[in-house]
């Protein structure tokens, strides 16, 4: 082998270092460029494969670019946010409620569904709303509120122990890249939150903040998420073992066939007791029976509810936010004890009134729905989704006139 030794290439240190810098800077430039690409424009919703649960992290720029794609100055942009309920779990992509909403509203509106599994009310669509609403004032935000507690306005949990949630990174991604138009009041609010998270709860939040600060220079998330979607996935994707590195744009949702309610419940992976606990968790804790037997709010929890919504959006933004509280399926609601049923009947209307007082367009959904409009206790089937679309379309049109 020794006689081939002279053929072995030698590394020239300064050329090598220079090429590292050039390669890195080229990636930064590409990241900045592709961040404006409306790469998600053809997605009807953020399905499970476009979610951090399967290692896909949509960036704030990517979402905003998709929302703005093809939008004219005359059109009203309707951004849908929230969790799996407004994502349309229980509906196939072609029967999605947001497509029905687009049909009902017509071409004067552009409906974009950014609600997804594990999202809070305002962390994906809400961030895009903050980014766009000054430039395009005809922007509305339609949110479902699964729990009456919201957390901080960056989408993190701030009750009990503060901790980042699944999509907290999206707010800070937008903030550290200066994508959110701000004023002194907003900056003061953000600095207060930064202090609380970065200083007082550094253990939980350092990764979120440092990651976003670095990414403000490197645009690494934008470039590699773009490639994950368009070209090849950079991690082994176990659910598609035959094509583990397939680009996410080719990974489509399987068509689901929904059986009858009993079978849906049996296949939900939850026992009847767990589902009932889920239903009760929706309203318990925020109100209780007082000493005289009358229902009353739990003061400290009610205050958290009030404050969290008060911090979420400014009064002028709230006039463009439609917030919907959800009633659980009547199939399960009627199995509640008389006392629990009374609590449910107290909490949802009182919470709605509170939100109305704060200036949100708040209402509740599902009280008059049928058992078959729900997949199980929550999540709406196509029939329920179409009812929601009609209700939301009517409210949006009424506000626009």
């Amino acid at each position: 082998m020794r006689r081939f030794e002279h053929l072995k290439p030698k590394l020239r240190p300064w050329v090598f270092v220079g090429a590292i810098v050039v390669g890195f800077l080229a990636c930064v430039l590409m990241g900045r460029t592709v961040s404006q690409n409306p790469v998600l424009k053809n997605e009807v919703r953020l399905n499970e494969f476009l979610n951090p649960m399967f290692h896909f992290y949509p960036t704030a720029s990517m979402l905003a670019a998709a929302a703005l794609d093809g939008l004219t100055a005359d059109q009203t942009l309707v951004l849908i946010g929230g969790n799996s309920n407004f994502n349309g779990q229980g509906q196939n992509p072609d029967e999605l409620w947001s497509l029905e909403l687009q049909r009902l509203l017509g071409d004067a509106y552009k409906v974009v569904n950014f609600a997804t599994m594990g999202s809070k009310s305002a962390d994906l669509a809400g961030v895009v709303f903050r980014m766009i609403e000054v430039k395009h004032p005809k922007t509305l935000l339609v949110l479902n509120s699964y729990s009456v507690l919201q957390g901080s306005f960056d989408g993190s949990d701030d009750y009990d122990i503060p901790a980042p949630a699944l999509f907290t990174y999206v707010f800070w991604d937008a903030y550290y890249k200066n994508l959110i138009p701000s004023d002194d009041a907003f900056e003061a609010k953000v600095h207060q939150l930064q202090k609380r998270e970065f200083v007082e709860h550094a253990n939980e939040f350092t990764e979120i903040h440092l990651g976003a600060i670095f990414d403000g220079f490197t645009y690494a998330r934008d470039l590699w998420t773009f490639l994950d979607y368009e070209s090849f996935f950079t991690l082994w994707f176990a659910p598609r073992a035959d094509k583990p590195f397939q680009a996410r744009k080719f990974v489509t949702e399987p068509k689901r066939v929904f059986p009858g309610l009993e079978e849906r419940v049996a296949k939900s992976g939850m026992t009847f007791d767990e589902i009932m606990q889920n239903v009760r968790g929706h309203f318990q804790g925020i109100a209780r029976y007082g000493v005289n037997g009358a229902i009353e709010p739990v003061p400290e929890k009610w205050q958290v509810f009030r404050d969290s919504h008060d911090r979420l959006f400014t009064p002028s933004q709230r006039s463009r936010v439609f917030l919907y509280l959800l009633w659980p399926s009547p199939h399960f609601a009627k199995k509640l004890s008389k006392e629990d049923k009374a609590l449910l009947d107290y909490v949802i209307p009182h919470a709605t009134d509170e939100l109305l007082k704060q200036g949100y367009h708040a209402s509740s959904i599902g009280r008059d729905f049928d058992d078959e409009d729900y997949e199980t206790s929550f999540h709406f089937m196509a029939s329920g989704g179409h009812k929601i679309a009609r209700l939301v379309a009517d409210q949006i049109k009424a506000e626009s006139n």
Partner: protein
Amino acid sequence: MLDRYRDLIFSVIVGLLTGILFHYLLYRFAIPGKPFIYVAF
């Protein structure tokens, strides 16, 4: 010709790939959640 620039081309290619890899590693570290090594395996 190729022989003359062999070391230069080699250094440029390896350097560029290292720069790209470094950028990718920053992406893996910048996204929240599980540590990179855990996710990779």
